[in-house]
C-alpha cells in the first residue's frame, strides 16, 4: 500500500512542557521501570525459596548502595504509578477533567508519591533499627 503524505501535527519539541504532559509520560516511564523491577522481585522470591546462600546474595545486593538507590527509585515509581493510576481511574469514571482539577490532582500525585516514598523508607529504617 502506498503511503499518503498527510500534513503532520508539530512534534514534541514544539510544545512547552506542562505538568499534565510530564506526568503522562512519567506514568509510562515508571510503568516500564517497574516492569524491570519485577525481575528483581522474582529473583528475591526465588532466592528465598531456594537457600540461605541464594537469599544472602540477594540481600547483599539490596543492602549495597546501588541496590538501595534502585530500590528507592522503584519505591517512588511504584507510588507514583499507583497514585497517578488512581487519577486515571477517576478520569475513566468521567470526572476531574476541568483544567484546574487536572492540575490539582497532578500536584497531589507528585506530593503524595514523594511523601509515601519517604514514609515507606523511614518506616523501613525504623523497623530495621
Amino acid at each position: 500500500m502506498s503511503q499518503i503524505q498527510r500534513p503532520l501535527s508539530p512534534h514534541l519539541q514544539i510544545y512547552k512542557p506542562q505538568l499534565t504532559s510530564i506526568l503522562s509520560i512519567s506514568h509510562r516511564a515508571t510503568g516500564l521501570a517497574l516492569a524491570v523491577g519485577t525481575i528483581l522481585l522474582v529473583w528475591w522470591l526465588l532466592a528465598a525459596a531456594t537457600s540461605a546462600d541464594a537469599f544472602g546474595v540477594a540481600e547483599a545486593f539490596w543492602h549495597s548502595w546501588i541496590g538501595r538507590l534502585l530500590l528507592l527509585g522503584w519505591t517512588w515509581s511504584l507510588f507514583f504509578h499507583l497514585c497517578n493510576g488512581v487519577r486515571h481511574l477517576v478520569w475513566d469514571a468521567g470526572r476531574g477533567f476541568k483544567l484546574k482539577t487536572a492540575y490539582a490532582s497532578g500536584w497531589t500525585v507528585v506530593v503524595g508519591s514523594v511523601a509515601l516514598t519517604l514514609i515507606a523508607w523511614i518506616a523501613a529504617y525504623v523497623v530495621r533499627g
Partner: protein
Amino acid sequence: MSDTRLRSPLGRVMGLGSAKEGVAHWWAQRVTAVAMIPLLLWFVIALIGLTGAGRAAVVAWLHAPVPAIATVLMLIAAFYHMALGIQVVVEDYVHTEWLKISVLLLNKFVAFALAAAGIFAVLRIAFQS
C-alpha cells in the same frame, strides 16, 4: 446493507472493521489496576515489616496461607497488567511490523515466565513442611 453503512467498500472487501475484541484490553488493564491497589499497599507494608529480618522471617511469612495467596494474586495481577501496559507502549512506538510482532511475542513470553517463576517460588515456600 444496513449493517455496513459506516464501512467503506474497500474496507468491507478487505475484511477490515471490528476485530470483535471491543474494550477487553482496556477493561483488563483497569480490573488489574483496581485489584492491585489493596494488594500492593498490603505487600509494601509487609515488605517494610520484613526489612533486614532475614530469610527465616520471609519463609515464615509466606508459609502462612493468607500472605501466600495474596502474594500469588498480586503477582498474577501485576504481570497481567505489565503485559498489557508494555503491549500498548510497543504498539505506540514500534512501527516495523516484524519487529513489533517479535517484541509483542517476547513481552508475553517474559511476562508469563516471570509470573510462573514468582508463583512457583511462593508456592514452594508455602508448601514446605
